[in-house]
């Protein structure tokens, strides 16, 4: 399953990931993190396509995206780590 993970402690609640997710599956939490910001939650994880738009737009590098079923030959950037 494709998965998006948020490091909620690093998040500053800017909402860029919510704004740019093409699947519109992100929303901001009602809770606050220890910096005092609300942080993103995934409303429907199954619909995440692991496109990485949220990762690309996050100014705080608080997002990790795992994509299943990708071949090494599909790797475009070395920072796309194969695991």
């Amino acid at each position, binding site marked *: 399953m494709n998965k998006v993970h948020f490091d909620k402690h690093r998040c500053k609640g800017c*909402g860029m990931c919510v704004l740019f997710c093409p699947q519109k599956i992100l929303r901001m939490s009602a809770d606050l993190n220890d910096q005092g910001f609300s942080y993103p939650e995934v409303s429907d994880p199954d619909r995440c396509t692991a496109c990485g738009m949220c990762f690309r737009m996050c*100014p705080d590098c608080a997002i*990790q995206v795992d994509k299943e*079923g990708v071949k090494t030959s599909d790797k475009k950037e*070395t920072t796309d780590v194969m695991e």
Partner: protein
Amino acid sequence: MLTLKRTDVLTDACTHYCPGCGHGIAHRLVAEVIEELGIREKTIGIAPVGCAVLMYDYFNCDMTECAHGRPPAMATGIKRIQPDKIVFTYQGDGDLAAIGTAETIHAANRGENITVIFINNAIYGMTGGQMAPTTLTGMRSTTSQDGRGEHGEGPPLKVCELLSTLDGVCYLERTAVSTPKDVIATKRAIKKAFQNQIDGKGFSLVEVLSMCPTDWKLSTVQSVDFVNNEMKEAFPLGVYKDKG
């Protein structure tokens, strides 16, 4: 499984930048390029004065800090003494295009083999939103309260256009970090600017149009729109010079 994650060229520190600030995206792109080119051990970065003044805390490569506006002069010195090192400066509009104009123009004209990352957010951020050389015509700031241009401030300074007239310059491109497509294009431009230095081609500068929600007094969404609608019109994106 393929994983998109934070590069090791960034430290674990949380940045001091405001929510939605484009500096964080630009930092990630520079760090990823350093990782991808395998040059971390020989890269020396020069932090500016301005919002990015503490960037040496955020990069896991050699970094130094410089007097306001002088990074191209310092980069010249470092690169000439240690030509095998990869030297980059990271500067805002106040640093590069106001107090540092002379250093910028002369380093470019001499064709110094360095890489300059220029973050243009049309305002002085760290000092609280004063007019910058790149503030748009009609844009309000704490020192242009009726909008720039009403009291003889002149139009915004277009750095890529200005430097494109200099023979010493190798590569100039203006990009943005306000959409995923622009972010990808910015990374490609930054990579080319570093590759040019590795290949000994000379002065390369990437101007990145970037968001400053706090000093623009806009929300994240509005500041993304401001870059896409207003800034891109005043500062057209594209390659301004490429000696190849």
